[in-house]
């Protein structure tokens, strides 16, 4: 156990092991406030490699791992405890479907009293009966095997989260709802320490998209030949669980932030109380990016796209857009910067698509690059084809260098490109197109590439807007103020370790 930290940052599936937007954000957040100490809780699954992709900043005191599919076995239940097991599993089912603060409170209390874990709640005969009952309610006539594994993972994840060894901290900061939010809520209720939930994208929306394309969830046989009842959907069980996690997180958190206004309506719809909602945008090192000189050398019109090669970035739409663009701007060059190791199958399909559309001479996959600034300075426009985003750092950084943006209408991209109510900077810094529309993206890119004056004007708008609103110093001050507001002296009863 390390010494107490000012902030306990709870990250899911990323920092410090996986490179990505939220991970980079978490790393930058800690580095931006060196006077604060941080303890990181990293949530992952056992199959995920825990090799650090980030060098921890000096003010990060320690990392605690929470492995969602590894939970305490707990004690073996006595025969007389069947009713207690049934009661706890009933609570777990509620937590996975329609949970709220009181559900989590009662669960934590029951788990503390009984000392139950996997042995009693999943591996016992009573636990099996409870799973069968849940199956009849949640996935009647669905494949039992699929339900079994889903139920087992979700229950184990709840048990793992509710057995998180909590570090001493003055504020817990969950970087999403979902699993991070539940761990944060657990910490809030057990350690009585304030909880800040920061949402970059809307967790449930992102999971909905992921589940929609998840090939391990298929429903071709669901319901068998039973036509009397509506087919149940396994993915709805997962979605309900994630929505429930969000509701719990919103109910328990002291402050909930998001990065842009549009997200707040989703948060309200998922049960977030108005009085807890705040906006803090992403911040970037504007000075560094704005100082990058534009490369004036003669070159092919260049489009750059920065992002992981994964389905949610919809790289395939970008590839098709470039294939269409080369008819409109014949000597165009497109550069894709981003790691391909997260979903190698998808990355391979993207490379195959490049060949199929005959764009091998136009599109270059650069993978992970050491100096992205070099490519930004020598590009003419940044493209973003994602089907879901929050406030993409790549867009903000490119904008700070004075690059115009063509982006799908996701997350806060429209706010960044077209401005927002009260924005001190007028004008558009690029073009917003609808997602999954390669033709619209190709036309928007061609418009910007063909018109030097427009490109220059848009670049300037972007540079000024990012400098005024998304400046790292401003955002850091916002977080520091919020931390200071939430930080409370550690109660004496919790100074020597948290139960």
């Amino acid at each position: 156990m390390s010494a107490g930290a000012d902030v306990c940052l709870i990250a899911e599936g990323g920092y410090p092991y996986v490179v990505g937007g939220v991970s980079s954000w978490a790393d930058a957040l800690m580095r931006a406030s060196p006077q604060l100490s941080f303890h990181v809780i990293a949530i992952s699954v056992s199959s995920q490699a825990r090799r650090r992709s980030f060098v921890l900043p000096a003010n990060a005191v320690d990392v605690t791992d929470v492995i969602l599919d590894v939970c305490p076995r707990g004690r073996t239940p006595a025969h007389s405890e069947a009713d207690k097991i049934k009661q706890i599993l009933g609570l777990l089912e509620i937590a996975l479907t329609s949970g709220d603060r009181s559900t989590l409170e009662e669960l934590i209390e029951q788990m503390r009293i009984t000392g139950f874990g996997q042995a009693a709640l999943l591996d016992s005969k009573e636990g099996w009966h409870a799973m069968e009952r849940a199956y009849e309610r949640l996935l009647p006539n669905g494949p039992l095997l699929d339900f079994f594994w889903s139920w087992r993972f979700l229950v184990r994840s709840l048990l793992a989260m509710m057995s998180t060894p909590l570090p001493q901290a003055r504020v817990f900061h969950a970087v999403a709802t979902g699993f991070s939010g539940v761990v944060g809520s657990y910490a809030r209720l057990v350690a009585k320490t304030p909880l800040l939930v920061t949402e970059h994208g809307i967790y449930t929306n992102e999971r909905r998209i992921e589940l929609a394309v998840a090939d391990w969830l298929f429903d071709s046989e669901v319901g068998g030949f039973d036509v009397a009842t509506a087919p149940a959907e396994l993915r709805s069980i997962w979605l309900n669980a994630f929505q429930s996690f969000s509701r719990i997180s919103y109910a328990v958190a002291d402050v909930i932030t998001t990065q842009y206004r549009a997200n707040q309506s989703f948060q309200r719809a998922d049960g977030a109380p108005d009085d807890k909602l705040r906006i803090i945008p992403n911040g970037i090192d504007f000075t560094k990016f704005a100082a990058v000189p534009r490369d004036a050398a003669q070159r092919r019109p260049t489009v750059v796209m920065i992002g992981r090669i994964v389905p949610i970035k919809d790289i395939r739409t970008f590839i098709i857009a470039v294939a269409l663009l080369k008819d409109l701007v014949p000597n165009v060059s497109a550069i894709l910067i981003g790691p391909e190791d997260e979903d190698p199958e998808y990355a391979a399909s993207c490379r195959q698509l490049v060949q199929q559309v005959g764009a091998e001479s136009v599109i270059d996959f650069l993978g992970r690059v050491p100096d992205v600034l070099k490519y930004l300075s020598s590009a003419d426009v940044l493209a973003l084809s994602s089907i879901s985003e929050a406030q993409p750092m790549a867009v903000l950084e490119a904008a700070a260098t004075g690059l115009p943006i063509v982006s799908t209408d996701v997350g806060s991209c429209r706010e960044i490109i077209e401005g927002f109510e009260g924005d001190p900077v007028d004008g558009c810094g690029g073009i917003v197109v609808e997602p999954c529309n390669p033709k619209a993206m190709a036309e928007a890119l061609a418009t910007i590439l063909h018109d030097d004056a427009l490109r220059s004007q848009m670049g300037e708008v972007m540079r000024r807007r990012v400098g005024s609103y998304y400046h790292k110093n401003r955002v850091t001050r916002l977080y520091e103020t919020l931390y200071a507001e939430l930080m409370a002296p550690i109660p004496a009863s919790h100074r020597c370790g948290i139960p």
Partner: protein
Amino acid sequence: MTSSNTTIEAMTRRGTLSGVLGAYLYAAFLVAGPWIFTVLGLLGLGAATCGGGSCFDLTVFRSIVIYNSMYALIVTSPLTFISGRYASERVYSGREENVFYVLVISLGVFAFLTLLIVVPFYLYVTTLDQTEAMLSIYNAMMIGCSWLCIPFLGAIRAYSAVLVAFGMGAFSLLVFGKSLHDPHTTSILLAFNCGFAITNLVLLATVVRRFGAKITVDPELKKRVGKKWELPLAGAAYALGLWIDKIIMWHADPSNGLVVAGAIQTLPSYDSAMFWAQLSSIPIIAVFFVHVETRFSALIRAYHARMQQRATLRELNEIVRNIGTHVLSSMFGLFAGLFIVAGMMIMLSFVFMTELGLRPSYMGIFRVSLAAMAFYTSAMFCFSFLLHLDLRRPALLIVLTFLVLNGAITVALLPFGPDLYGYGNMIAATVSLLFGFSLVLRELSWIHYHAFITNNPSL
């Protein structure tokens, strides 16, 4: 037994008389090969050397073989319960490189224990001369080796090898028996051992041919044995349960007993009755393995296949109901069959009393033994169902129950004299059957739980 079940099933599906007969023989030899061979040896050599009459050397030979059979079964059963499961799992998963190592370990452990127990017994406790003692030790090794090889052959479905091995052994035994002109203990033992040696040679050669003779150590073996500790314990309890009443009786009634070679003590009136009663169960045991367990195995396979094909709970419940119906109807059918066999044995015993080595004074024990056989064999069917579902602890409970009750009740009834000989065994068998049947019924209702949780290798 899964792999042997598949073989038996395939043999019966041929639709030919030879296929069905082969299946029965294969099943019988897999379950009780060395035992059947021993019976053939005792009958064949007895008839050849003494012409059916009594002679002392044959009595010595019988006593030695009874002791060796008891010793070999008790010591090899824990080993075969483990090695059989190990070999089946390895063959199923295609990782056979360590199988020969396990056979070598089994033989090594058995040889070590033989050196420790059997060698001093025959050399220093009995009054046998050195040649007789050595041949007796050799005989114990041969019987044990045979028991130890059989599970490996079951795992690779080598039914032809099993039939050929015991066929060749029996044939050579008869040839050797016929050529014996001097019915001395040494020569009878030598003939018997030679027959067993030929059988074992074929069995071992088949194992080596399939798995090779390279010893590849499995560092996980100890861990695996530790994880499935119930199996060797069940093996020991099963074998001890079979012999405990006899051991008690040998030492409880010395006045009616037979002592040969100074220390080999038996009670022929009890042993013969029990021996023939247990032997009479083999046809029904063969029926169990040929028809009942193969169908049970097929239903369990269907259950797992449908589960993997993403069946609904309702569909899986339907299969579980079919399994339950099959087990119940089979148990009642087999139980009835056992009693019919028992009845036939009682009637036949009046005609073939001398040939069976029985006397009128033994008939009371014989009738009780036959009733005990019906209960005990049915209890062992329950044991087999539970092991098939890999429910090792409930299975262990059945054989432990029989072992404890058989020993305790046999001792408790001793003061009531010969009138109640065999009743301890029968009461123990009855209680074990009732207990075993209730366990099977209980566990059948938990098949989903066992398939998904207890026996799920992914957990």
